[in-house]
């Protein structure tokens, strides 16, 4: 790619289209390669260990635990792809840890950069954000694995356990402040409804990743109603 700045509209448009096509090509290629690698790895290890995976046990296991995760994968794909855009989407599904890291990370970068969803600027910011985030994880895990032996007693010390068990609440507390304060009225409804739901059906707390869907749909619905009302008023005045 040449380092040229596209100022006039038509060449910029053309460039964006080319970039977009390239993103899908590279995205698909790398997704395919990684899928083969991830699923192939147990068999390669099988050759090394001299014992192939027991396929019927794996199939049974899939039916018992895998189906839930399959549903949640579909939900994740439908919900997060529009948030992440093309490049960010391909990368995020390869590198995982969406809800506890990639999504808030991309939202944060977008907030700081001030880009609008659906624009090329947003697509670029979110790709940069997801790539940077993935590389940090890969790097920290690689270093961590190397240092694992000296680090193990510190990280597994009884005193520090509560901290690491509460990474997710810590993250969502901070994000909640960021999003609630600008949309307090909107946030109150799903928060109250979800809380009441969990109070009466406590077993649902272990299914939080699935509960995101009704909660999100409800909030989008409410946001749509108030947005429609507002834009209707503006249209009349």
């Amino acid at each position, binding site marked *: 790619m040449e380092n040229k700045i596209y100022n006039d509209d038509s060449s910029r448009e053309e460039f964006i289209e080319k970039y977009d096509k390239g993103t899908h090509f590279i995205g698909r290629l790398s997704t395919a390669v990684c899928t083969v690698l991830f699923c192939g790895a147990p068999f390669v290890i099988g050759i090394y260990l001299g014992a192939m995976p027991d396929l019927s046990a794996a199939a049974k296991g899939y039916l018992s635990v895998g189906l839930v995760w399959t549903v949640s994968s579909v939900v994740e794909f439908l919900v997060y792809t529009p948030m992440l855009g093309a490049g960010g989407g391909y990368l995020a599904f390869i590198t995982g840890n969406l809800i506890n890291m990639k999504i808030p990370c991309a939202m944060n970068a977008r907030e700081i950069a001030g880009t609008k969803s659906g624009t090329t600027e947003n697509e670029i910011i979110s790709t940069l954000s997801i790539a940077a985030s993935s590389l940090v994880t890969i790097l920290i895990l690689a270093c961590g694995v190397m240092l694992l032996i000296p680090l193990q007693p510190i990280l597994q010390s009884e005193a520090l356990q509560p901290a690491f068990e509460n990474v997710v609440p*810590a993250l969502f507390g901070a994000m909640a402040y960021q999003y609630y304060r600008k949309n307090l009225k909107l946030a109150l409804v*799903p928060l109250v409804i979800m809380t009441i739901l969990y109070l009466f059906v406590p077993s649902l707390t272990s299914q939080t990743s699935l509960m995101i869907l009704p909660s999100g749909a409800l909030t989008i619905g409410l946001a749509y109603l108030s947005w429609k009302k507002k834009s209707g008023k503006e249209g009349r005045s």
Partner: protein
Amino acid sequence: MIDILNSLPMYLICGGIILVVALVCVVFMVRAYRAGIAIGMDQKKLKYAVTSSITFSILPSVGILLGVIALSGSLGTPWPWLRLSVIGALHYETQVAEAAAEQVGMSQLSASAMTPQAFTTIALLMSICIIWGMVLSFFFNKSYLKKLQGRKESGEADAKNKKEGFGDTAMTAMFIGLVSAYMGSYIGSFVSGKGMFTFQGDITPIIVAVVSALVMAVFTYFAEKKHMVWLESFSIAGSMLIGMIAAVLI
């Protein structure tokens, strides 16, 4: 058995795959950065997006590293290292590994009962249960995004001013819904987790979330009112850290 699972060939197989993924990330990053400059985006903004994402990701990554440590006792280090560096998520891997161990006839996930075949079967199950996001992404990312885009464009043609901006509002709303689902679950499991309305559940997540939100409020105050914009890159990570410290103290 655990020695074989921690042997050099295992590190090479898993490390090699991680390296491929790292390269993919680098390719995407360089492309996006160049494209950003080509369409005239502020270079500072692009760098800011990268640095803020780096600082943001450090703490959650340390949390993920703990997942590797937790699983390394029974599965050896290389395999959890691979699973958690890519595709997987902490809560997922742990849960599926345990369930998979049950399927191959182990009472629980442990190194002493592990056989080579049990290991490869568990590894396969951990891989296939969560592959669907990638499969869908391969087949439908392009058409799905195009459809959303198309809907937006036709909407804009209908009533340009009216339709503008809801995409953004919808994303914010989705996120509010998501955060609310989690917040609700913390309150719910504290109040009803150990029997309905007994208030015997774990209160720590609520305290951590509240502390973290308060710290975030302080950061935001300084960033906005005192114009210390650089704080923004650290505000989330800082709030999380203090929230997590609160969990240790109580």
